[in-house]
């Protein structure tokens, strides 16, 4: 299971997400602000697999800063942005800059915690696929004399 950082300035929300993701067996760390999140991302070793961050915290674009920090630390870290009312436009901007997905916090009649857990799952898969691809790419580069047929059947 993954190493996940949950960033939200609302303590109750942060804890609820943490508990929900731990239920799926993830190892969850939390941060209560953009600044704390960036610090934790920078010093994390190994880097987090998935970062779940709220969009609006210190500023309207805190989520974007967290995303930037996460991708700087490890370009394959998957970032899921949480948006409350009114910040969807910023969330879409995050997608353009490399976030994995975003989840709206208030969708009437939808269990967004389950939805978030599902998206974290898929983010993990995506990261695993990316890592596998890179591994294969490295392996490919280290095999100087390989025929195309062999590469395909690999």
């Amino acid at each position, binding site marked *: 299971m993954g190493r996940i950082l949950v960033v939200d300035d*609302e303590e*109750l929300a942060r804890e609820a997400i943490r508990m929900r993701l731990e239920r799926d067996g993830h190892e969850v760390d939390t941060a209560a602000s953009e600044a704390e999140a960036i610090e934790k991302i920078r010093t994390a070793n190994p880097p987090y697999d998935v970062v779940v961050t709220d969009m609006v915290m210190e500023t309207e674009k805190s989520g974007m800063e967290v995303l930037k920090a996460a991708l700087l630390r490890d370009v394959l870290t998957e970032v899921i942005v*949480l948006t*409350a*009312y*009114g910040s969807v436009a910023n969330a879409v901007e995050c997608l353009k800059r490399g976030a994995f997905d975003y989840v709206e916090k*208030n969708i009437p009649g939808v269990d*967004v915690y389950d939805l978030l857990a599902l998206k974290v799952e898929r983010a993990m898969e995506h990261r695993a696929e990316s890592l596998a691809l890179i591994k294969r790419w490295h392996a490919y580069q280290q095999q100087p004399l390989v025929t195309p047929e062999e590469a395909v059947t690999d």
Partner: protein
Amino acid sequence: MATQPTALTPDRPKLEHAYRFLSALPDTEALLRAILEEALEVVRATRGTIALMDYRTGELVVRVAVGAGWTDGQSAPRWRVTDEPGGSISGYVALTGQPYLCGDVTKDPHYYPLFPDTRSELAVPLIGRGNKVLGVLNVESEKLNAFTEQDARILTALASVASFALSSADYHNRERALIELGKDLAAATEIETLLERVAEVAAQILDADDCSLFLLDKSLNRLVLRASKGLLRQFVGQASYRLGEGLTGWVALHGKPIRTDGVVGDPRWKGLYTELLPEEISAFMAVPIRGRNGVLGVLRVVRKRSSPLAPHYLFTEEDEELLAMLASQVGAALERAELQERLFTMEHIAAVGELSARIAHMIGNKIFALKGALKEVLLRLQSVPLPEGVQTIFNGMERSLFEVEMLLQELRDFVKATQLNLQPLCLSDLVRELVQEAAQRLPHLQFELHLDEQPVWVRGDPEKLRSVVEELLENASHFLKDGDTITLHLSLHQWFSGRKVACLVVQDSGPGIPERMKDQIFQPFFSTRAKGMGLGLAIVKGIVEAHGGTITERGKEGEGAKFIITLPAIEPPKGGTG
């Protein structure tokens, strides 16, 4: 005859006195009296009168009488304006507009005997602007051949002073009324009061018996009576003309005034809503009320015939200028009021939008946290048997959280209402589709749809316009019983400015909207329903107006609600069949 050249000399101080009177504009009566006294002295007459025209009856009425033989309290003589024998010399002068010198009244066909000693008479007309006869100055003497041509010239000069004074007094009165009205127009906030006032003042200064004001209702494309001074008062808000219909509709359609004697025989006359019976109308005048983008309405005045025989009391060119000026002031006031209203609504909506966005964001975050906490509690209690009733409490909590999120969504829709994704769109198809959907969703209601054969196209945001129609249908359904009907009409209208508009009418057979609520239904946070926060119609209005359209409610309480939406129409795209 030898005294003629010096006739004026001894009396000059008095004449100067009269001119001073004139420049100070005292009451007209005193001035006319001074002029008449002057006249009697200058031409050495026994007595005299100044009679003024009463255009309502077509008669001359004596306003001042000076000299021997008149007694106080004597009722003022009235003379018909006529050339019939015995009709009076003054009456004849009023008819011809020429001075009349009579050396021997006993031989004069026009003479009307009033005093037994009268032998000769001299009468000159009082001529106003446009050669209009205002009255007659008449002097008489007990001597035969008492007056000369020279006397006639002197009296004509004095009469012109009187005419000038009368015209000035008239201008003065009009000016005062206009200044008063100008103040009202600048200060008034209630447009209805203002229109009433304009109708009143216009009737007063134009000496009209009635005045009515029609304004163009763009959603109905009709001229609706908004103010009237007299008989039509009870039809305010109801009486209406199509553009081009009747004289009133003609004025609005062509943007030109009409000034006519009576209306009988005019092919444009429809007589739909009249202040008077057509044969009672002595004169009719209507002018367009213009705004920056065309005609906003029509202001019309009528004069009544005092008797079937009375001549037509016509409106003059001057009257028309005056009415046009009043109309332009009304136009300016209307546009100002509309602008203010729009600004207010826009600011209101913007302020509400910004505030609600902030609050919704904060609440949304808290709700999200609460949902998560509640979920965690439920998950932890899964394996534990719950005390009785606890599950119901949890269900209630979940439902409440759900409802709060629904409210947040409503707020979001409201704020987003004006952010459009415009594209050519066949409104006919959209409406047809939505009615079909609604008929399935609301099987207990009847739906009627009337579409033009030609598909109606607009530039619009499909999602937003869809939600407009859905909201109106949804809103109606809340007030309808089983078997009630919702009727939709979609048609293309052409305004007189040439603009084409799509007009969608959504009408139901429910209880209708109470008169006292009509002003509020489009305001944010107004609702009579327990559910929701009353943004539905405010969102609808926001969307329609963002499309450059209008929405109004025109139903009558007890007869169902009737929403009318107009949207700027476009030509169907080439090759598109809808």
